[in-house]
C-alpha cells in the first residue's frame, strides 16, 4: 500500500472521528452539567489524536524503511572487486533501485527474463527507460527488494492504521461534559506555533552545518592557510610547483574585490541616501514626501538582476566609450570594472540607506530639535550640529547593514564586475568577488565532491560569517540607539 493511500485513509478516519466526537459531545449536553468545551472541540481533539500520531509514525516508518532497503540491497550486491563493472557502490544501489521501480510497473504475472537485454523491451513498452549499465545480476536483487519493500509497506500501513483507530477510540472514550477538549486542542496548537517559530533556528543551523561539513571536506585537500592567505585564485590548473594538483584557492583577491566594490558602492550610496533621508525628514513638504517615498520604495523593489543588466548593457559600454572619447584612443575604463559595478550597486543601495536613516532621524526626539531652533540656530545648523550627531550611532548601524548587503550582493557583480581574480588598485579594471566565484564554481558541470565545487561552500561560509558579524553588530547598535530614545 502506498504511503499516500495510507495517509488518505488516516485522514478519513480522522474526519469520521471528528463527526462522531462532535455528535457525542453534543448528545452529552443535556443541561444537567455545564459542559467545559463546546462540541466541535471534542471533534477536533478526536481528529488530532486519530491523525497526528499516525502521520508521525508513517513518516518515521517510511524514512526508516528506505534506509533499511538501502542496507538490504547493499548486502545483497556482489562483493566489489577491481573489475566491478559499475563505478561505485552508490551507483550500484541506485541502479538496482531504479530497476526495481521499473519492475513494479510490469504486470505481476510476467515471467522475468534473466538478462537485462531481454528485460528492456517490455520495460520500454511501459515507458520505463533505464541506464544501459544495469547489470544482469541486479534483476534478482531488484525483485527481492520489491518484495521486501511491499512487506515493509504493508506492515507499516497496518500499524499506522491501527494507531490511528486507537487514537480515535481513545479520544472518543474521553468525551464527557467536564472533559477539557478545548484545552487539549489549544495545547497542541501552541506546540504547532512553537514548532513554526523554531524554523528560523533550524534554518540557521542548516546553513552553518551544511556549509561547515563541505568546508571541512574542502580543507582535507586544500590547506586552510592556502585558502585564507593565498593570493592566487586559480582553481582549475595547478601552478607549477605550488598548490598541489587541483590548483590554487587563494581567498585574498576575491575578498579584496568584494570589499573594494562594496567601498565604491558605499561612497555612492551613503552621501546620496543620507542627504535624501535628511531632506525627506526635515525639509520636504508632505506632498513631495507622499510622491518621493513610494518612488524610493519602488526603486528598492527592483530586483538586482535588473541593476546588473543595466550595468552590463548600458552603463558599462557607455563608460567605456566615454573614456575612449576622453583619451581619444583606447578606453581606460573597461566594460566590466570595479567602478561600474560599484556605481550601480551604489544606486541600488540608495533607497536602502535612505529608508534606514529616515527611521533613525525621525527617532530623534522633537525636544532636541526645538531646543536648537529655539536658540536661533538655522535648520541646517540644527541638523548638522544636533540631529546628525545624536543620530550618529544609529546611522553607523545603518551603514553597517548596508555594507553587509553590498558584500553579499550577487547578481550585479556577476554581470558587471568580471570573473578574473585580479589584485589591483585601479578602480577602472575588473576584479571579482566572493559571490561571483560561488556562482561560477557551482554552475559548471563539475563533479560535486571535487575541491573546485567544495570551495564554493568555504567561500559561502566566509561570506556568512562576515555578514553575520556585521549584522549582529549593526542590529545591536541600532537597538541600543532606539532604546535610548524610547
Amino acid at each position, binding site marked *: 500500500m502506498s504511503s499516500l493511500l495510507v495517509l488518505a485513509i488516516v485522514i478519513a478516519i480522522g474526519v469520521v472521528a471528528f463527526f462522531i466526537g462532535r455528535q457525542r459531545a453534543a448528545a452529552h449536553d443535556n443541561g444537567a452539567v455545564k459542559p467545559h468545551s463546546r462540541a466541535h472541540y471534542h471533534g477536533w481533539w478526536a481528529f488530532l489524536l486519530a491523525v497526528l500520531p499516525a502521520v508521525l509514525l508513517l513518516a518515521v516508518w517510511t524514512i526508516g524503511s528506505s534506509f533499511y532497503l538501502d542496507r538490504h540491497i547493499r548486502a545483497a550486491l556482489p562483493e566489489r572487486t577491481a573489475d566491478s563493472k559499475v563505478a561505485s557502490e552508490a551507483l550500484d544501489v541506485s541502479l538496482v533501485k531504479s530497476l526495481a521501480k521499473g519492475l513494479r510497473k510490469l504486470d505481476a504475472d510476467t515471467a522475468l527474463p534473466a538478462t537485462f537485454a531481454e528485460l528492456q523491451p517490455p520495460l520500454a513498452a511501459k515507458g520505463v527507460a533505464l541506464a544501459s549499465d544495469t547489470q544482469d545480476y541486479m534483476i534478482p536483487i531488484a525483485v527481492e527488494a520489491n518484495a521486501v519493500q511491499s512487506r515493509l509497506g504493508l506492515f507499516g500501513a497496518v500499524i499506522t492504521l491501527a494507531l490511528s483507530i486507537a487514537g480515535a477510540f481513545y479520544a472518543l472514550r474521553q468525551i464527557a461534559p467536564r472533559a477539557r477538549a478545548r484545552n487539549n486542542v489549544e495545547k497542541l496548537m501552541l506546540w504547532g506555533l512553537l514548532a513554526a517559530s523554531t524554523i528560523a533556528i533550524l534554518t540557521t543551523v542548516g546553513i552553518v552545518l551544511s556549509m561547515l561539513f563541505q568546508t571541512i571536506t574542502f580543507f582535507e585537500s586544500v590547506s586552510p592557510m592556502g585558502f585564507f592567505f593565498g593570493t592566487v585564485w586559480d582553481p582549475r590548473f595547478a601552478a607549477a610547483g605550488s598548490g598541489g594538483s587541483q590548483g590554487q584557492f587563494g581567498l585574498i583577491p576575491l575578498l579584496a574585490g568584494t570589499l573594494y566594490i562594496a567601498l565604491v558602492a558605499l561612497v555612492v550610496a551613503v552621501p546620496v541616501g543620507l542627504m535624501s533621508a535628511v531632506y525627506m525628514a526635515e525639509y520636504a513638504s508632505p506632498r513631495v514626501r507622499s510622491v518621493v517615498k513610494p518612488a524610493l520604495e519602488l526603486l528598492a523593489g527592483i530586483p538586482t538582476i535588473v541593476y546588473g543588466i543595466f550595468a552590463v548593457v548600458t552603463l558599462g559600454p557607455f563608460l567605456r566609450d566615454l573614456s575612449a572619447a576622453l583619451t581619444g584612443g583606447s578606453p581606460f575604463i573597461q566594460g566590466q570594472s570595479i567602478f561600474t559595478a560599484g556605481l550601480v550597486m551604489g544606486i541600488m543601495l*540608495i533607497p536602502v540607506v535612505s529608508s534606514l536613516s529616515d527611521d533613525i532621524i525621525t527617532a530623534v526626539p522633537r525636544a532636541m530639535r526645538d531646543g536648537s531652533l529655539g536658540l536661533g540656530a538655522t535648520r541646517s545648523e540644527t541638523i548638522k550640529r544636533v540631529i546628525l550627531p545624536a543620530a550618529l550611532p544609529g546611522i553607523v548601524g545603518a551603514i553597517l547593514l548596508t555594507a*553587509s548587503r553590498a558584500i553579499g550582493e550577487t547578481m550585479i557583480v556577476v554581470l558587471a564586475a568580471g570573473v578574473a581574480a585580479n589584485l589591483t588598485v585601479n578602480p577602472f579594471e575588473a576584479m571579482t568577488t566572493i559571490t561571483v566565484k560561488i556562482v561560477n564554481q557551482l554552475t559548471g558541470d563539475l563533479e560535486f565532491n571535487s575541491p573546485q565545487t567544495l570551495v564554493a561552500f568555504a567561500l559561502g561560509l566566509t561570506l556568512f560569517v562576515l555578514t553575520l558579524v556585521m549584522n549582529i553588530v549593526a542590529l545591536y547598535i541600532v537597538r541600543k540607539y532606539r532604546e535610548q530614545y524610547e
Partner: protein
Amino acid sequence: MTDISMDTMARAVAHPRRDIGLKGRYAAERRFRIYGAVAISVGLAFLAIMLITIVSKGYTAFWQTTVTLPINFDEKVIDPSNKRATDPSVLIKANYPKLAENALVAKLGINPDDKPMIQKLKGFLSEGARVQLRNIVAADPSVIGTTRNVDILAAANLDSAFKGQIDLSVEEARRKVSDQQIAWMDKLKADGAMAEHFNTGLFTYGASSRPETSGMGVAIIGSFYMMVIVLLLALPIGVAASIYLEEFAKKNRLTDLIEVNINNLAAVPSIVFGLLGLAVFINFLGMPRSAAFVGGLVLTLMTLPTIIIATRAALAAVPPSIRSAALGLGASKMQMVFHHILPLAAPGILTGTIIGLARALGETAPLLLIGMVAFVADYPKTPFDPATALPVQIYMWANEAERAFVERMSGAIIILLVFLMAMNITAIVLRRRFERRW
C-alpha cells in the same frame, strides 16, 4: 497699533544690533537644502534612466515579424514514397522547411531552378517553421495535398531588419542580412504578406537556441509554481511563528535566540540560501535539481523572516484593550488571537507578504545554485520537473550574444517589472487604505 508697541519698536531699533553672520548662515542653509534636493533628484533620475533605457530597448520585443505564406502541403515533399499509413514516423521526419521554402519561392516569383538564388533565401524564415508545419500535419493529416495560408515567423535577423534595427549603411558583408533579403523583405511588406504581430510566443515558448522561437513560457510557469509554494509555506509558517513570538512566548533564552535568528536571517545574503538549498535539499535529501519545488523551498526560507517581521509589527499594533476585552469575556488566548487579533492584523500581514513575495519573485542568485539555469524547452508539468524562473531567464538571455536576445531580455525585464510594480503598488495602497490609527 498702540503706543506701547511703538515704544518697544523704538527701543528695539535703539538696541545695538550684533552681527551674527546671518547672511552667510542663510547661504549655508540654502546650500544644504539644495544638496538634499539634489540627492533625491539623483536617486529618482537613476530610476528614470534605468526604466527608460530598458523600456526603449525592450518594447519592440512585444512585436514579432511573420510572413504569411500559402503553404502547399505537397504530398511529394512530405511523403514521397507514400508510406505514412504503415509508418507514422514519416510524418515526423518529413522535410517541412522545404514546404515553407517552396511557398516563399513561389511568393517571391523566383525561378524554382535558380539554385544560387534560392540559396540566398537561407535564414529568411525561422527554423521554427519545421515544428509549426509538422504540428499542423500531425493534428490533421488530411491537410496533405491542400494549400493553406500559414503565418510563419521570420528569422530573428529579418525581424530586426523589419523593425529597422539593422544599420543598412554598414557594408553588406559585415551585416547579417543581405541586400537581396532586404529587397525581398520590402517586396513582401508591400504585398502585405510580411507584417508585425503581437508576440504571443514571448509568453508561451520555452527555451530555444533561436531568438524568434524562445520565450518565457517555462519561466513564467516555474515562477508561478515557486510563488504558490512560497505563499503556501511561508505565509502559514510565518504567521504561526509570529503569533507564538508576539502573543505566547515568555521572555527567555529560547525566545531571544529565535528573535536574533530571525533578524539576522533577514540580512543574510540570498546566495547563502542557495548554498543551503544545494547542500541540504539536493545533496542530502536527494530532491531533483532545477525543480521549481526546491526553488520554492529555498525562497520560502528566504522570505520567512520578512513575513515574520511584518506580521509581528502588525500584531503588536493591535491595541491591548482588544486583548483584555476578549479575555474578559472568557475567550481563551487562542480564541482571542484567532477571533480578534489576527483579523485586525490581516492588512499588515498581507502587505508584508506581498512585499516578501515580490522580493522572492525577483530573486536570482540562489536559483542559479540549485540548477535552475537550465535549457528547458518543455513546460514543467509538476513542480518537480525542471523549470526556470523569470529572473533566471533574463540572466540566461543576458549571456547570449545575439542582438535579438537582448531585445527579448529587455522585454522580459519589462514584464518582470510590471509584475513587481503591481505587487509593490498593491502593498503601498493596501497599507494606506487600511492603516488604522488606534
